[in-house]
């Protein structure tokens, strides 16, 4: 494998990891606050749809982004209502939200655009274009560093940089601020927060809202940066992979970055090398396609100890039974 190929695979890794990373960080906030969220997939999906639809209608990707965030926030609010206010089952709520998004996106898309749930293709200002970082052109010829900077680091859409910047930002928010302290506490022992005079409900809603916003970014990235428009079910299970990454990362921001990059890398490699001819035997494409999943299991079993979720996770906070 030559250097250029490595750069290309890593470049692909960054692109593929970005939606995972955004969704994974999204889940991190919610789950750290004690609200489990298997509805990441649905929120991403509806955001992907809303942002593509709004971008197609207005021609502005920024309005699209706002619409995506708004749509995702609505579903997040629904999840909050079910799991915080009405103390419902968080798994059921998540499952329902996934179904809801999967149905609504096509239903509305068909009603508005008549393209079977697809939005029109986005062009120009209706899409996030790659950003060329300063000096990318002039540095490019420099050996090793040149390609790394100009091809791997430069040339992604703004949301990629946002996603990566969100990692230190989240770490800081979580471990260095009052909000972060309360957020983590509420996921571990809500009664402690409650008796300390802080509203458990307030913190959890805030966390769920952040989850909504980040899922909005993830969805918008999919449909307006990676692709140029929405297609039905276009999240294709990424929400679940993000969830896996979150568990993998033991609910920590920097680990989340590593986990998502790993998943991105595994997928990039399996895309790059489909059928592998070993001479005596041909490894079928199905095997390489399953490889990221097989490796995930292997890594999980071999290297990651027991992942302990936030202690109060999944349980609604009830003080009077």
């Amino acid at each position, binding site marked *: 494998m030559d250097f250029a190929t490595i750069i290309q695979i890593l470049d692909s890794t960054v692109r593929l990891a970005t939606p995972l990373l955004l969704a994974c960080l999204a889940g991190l906030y919610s789950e750290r606050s004690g609200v489990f969220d298997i509805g990441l997939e649905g929120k991403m999906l509806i955001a992907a749809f809303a942002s593509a639809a709004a971008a197609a209608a207005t021609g502005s990707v920024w309005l699209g982004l706002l619409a995506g965030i708004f749509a995702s926030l609505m579903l997040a609010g629904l999840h909050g209502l079910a799991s915080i206010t009405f103390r419902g089952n968080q798994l059921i709520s998540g499952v329902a939200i996934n179904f809801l998004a999967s149905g609504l996106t096509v239903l509305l898309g068909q009603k508005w655009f008549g393209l079977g749930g697809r939005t029109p293709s986005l062009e120009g200002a209706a899409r996030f274009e790659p950003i060329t970082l300063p000096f990318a052109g002039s540095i490019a010829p420099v050996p090793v560093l040149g390609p790394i900077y100009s091809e791997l680091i430069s040339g992604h859409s703004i949301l990629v940089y946002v996603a990566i910047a969100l990692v230190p930002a989240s770490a800081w928010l979580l*471990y*260095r*601020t*009052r*909000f*972060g*302290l*309360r957020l*983590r*506490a509420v996921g*571990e*022992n809500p*009664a*402690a*927060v*409650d*008796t*300390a*005079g*802080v*509203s458990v409900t307030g913190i959890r809603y805030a966390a769920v809202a952040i989850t909504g916003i980040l899922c909005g970014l993830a969805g918008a990235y999919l449909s307006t940066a990676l692709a140029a428009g929405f297609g039905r079910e276009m999240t294709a299970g990424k929400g679940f992979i993000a969830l896996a990454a979150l568990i993998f990362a033991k609910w920590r921001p920097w680990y989340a970055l590593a986990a998502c990059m790993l998943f991105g890398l595994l997928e990039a490699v399996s895309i790059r090398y489909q059928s592998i001819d070993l001479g005596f035997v041909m490894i079928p494409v199905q095997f390489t396609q399953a490889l990221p999943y097989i490796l995930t299991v292997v890594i999980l079993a071999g290297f990651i100890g027991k992942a302990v979720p936030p*202690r109060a996770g999944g349980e609604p906070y009830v*003080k*009077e*039974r």
Partner: protein
Amino acid sequence: MGGADISGRQSSAAPFAIELRGISKAFGPVQANKDISIQVAKGSIHGIIGENGAGKSTLMSILYGFYKADAGEIVIDGKVTPIPDSQSAIRAGIGMVFQHFKLVQNFTVLENVILGAEEGGILARSLARARKVLADLAREYELDVDPDALIEDLSVGHQQRVEILKALYRQADILILDEPTGVLTPAEADHLFRILKGLRDQGKTIILITHKLREIMETTDTVSVMRRGTMVATVRTSETSPEELAELMVGRKVLLQVEKAPATPGKTVLEVENLRVRDTQGVERLKGINLTIRAGEILGIAGVAGNGQSELLEVLGGIARGTGTIRLNGRELDLTGRHSDGQSRRADGIAHVPEDRQVLGLIMDFTAWENVAFGYHHAPEYQKSALLMDNDAIRADCEKKMATFDVRPPIPTLAAKNFSGGNQQKIVVAREIERNPDLLLVGQPTRGVDIGAIEFIHKQIVALRDAGKAVLLVSVELDEIMSLADRIAVMFDGRIMGERLPDQTNERELGLLMAGVSGEAA
């Protein structure tokens, strides 16, 4: 009714620190508090006692804004102060140490202390300030804990200090403690009461809930008694006696002393040689234990919690694995293999009343009758056929046990979580003792249990001994050990420091052994 005109150390003209008027609270159909009124004078220690489920915790939770009262009002320093939430309680200068600590286990002490009382959005400043304040408080009240330690690494005694520090950090003038000594060693409890008296002398007001009459008598200025949701009396401590309080509480005379005949030990039932146990982190928790128990004998294990007593019970009960030898009636038991689990131990004739009934001894969501079979679900009398269990038989058995052990309410289909702590404990004790085991392991049998139930449980343990069975009793309550045990072994740091006979030793000597001062030196 309550609300008697009693004002502790202060003159009755001064406003009360706290006055509750006509507080009522129902949980669904359960009326936990009925029209309760009390007055607590500023700068006094006020005790509240009552049976399990009498409504003490509920009342205090209302005062702290954790629960909302259905009716009634709260008056603080003479002003009617609505307390809809804990925030308001804190603002009104109330701090509470709950029976089950409200601490975040994987946070540091500092983080727990500032939680909810942070200054500004960034933590660094709050942490720095808290560190200073904590140092001051530690000096002032002997409340030192390592501010950077994780809560999960602290002993319960230290965890409780953190809870008190939390309240003091918020400048509480009124401190409520709900069963603070349930999990403390005598030394820790003494220390706590010293702190509380110090706080009182600085003008703080303290409400103390406890089941231990001795603590009430020694510490409080006034005491209120609750029964079935109502306040039955409030009296000056100096004008009452434990016997009177006990009778007020339970509504009948209670024996505060265990009555038992001298032991007549028979053949050796349990022999433990060089028993060693490591925990999951690989730390050695038992470092070569040797002991024997004979039939018709109660061996009491005294010691500060966390010195290996739990591990000893766990290894004998088949929960943990270890090395060494254990012989029961001369037969060696498996310590590591397939036959080292709880099922095998039960089959061998060992029954186990675990220290933590809610986490180990019961499935809180199961009904009482399901819990009665817990651990004995393989017992032949509970089977209908090779495959099916005989639920009717278990239910019938449960009814019988509930009757003999006076479990209230005697409803087999009620979930375990809906029984009060004392009655939960009775279910566990009934299940284990009624098996008529050769060896009974008992850990903290009366923790958090009211005096009526304590009396009953103690009687049962003695009865089993008198039936010629061996009992291993682990308790951090020296009182309990002194009055129940026929022989006392003191554990410290995974070792047995020495053995004493109850009538040839005293609390001071045992206390020294518990602190690791060996027998010869003491």
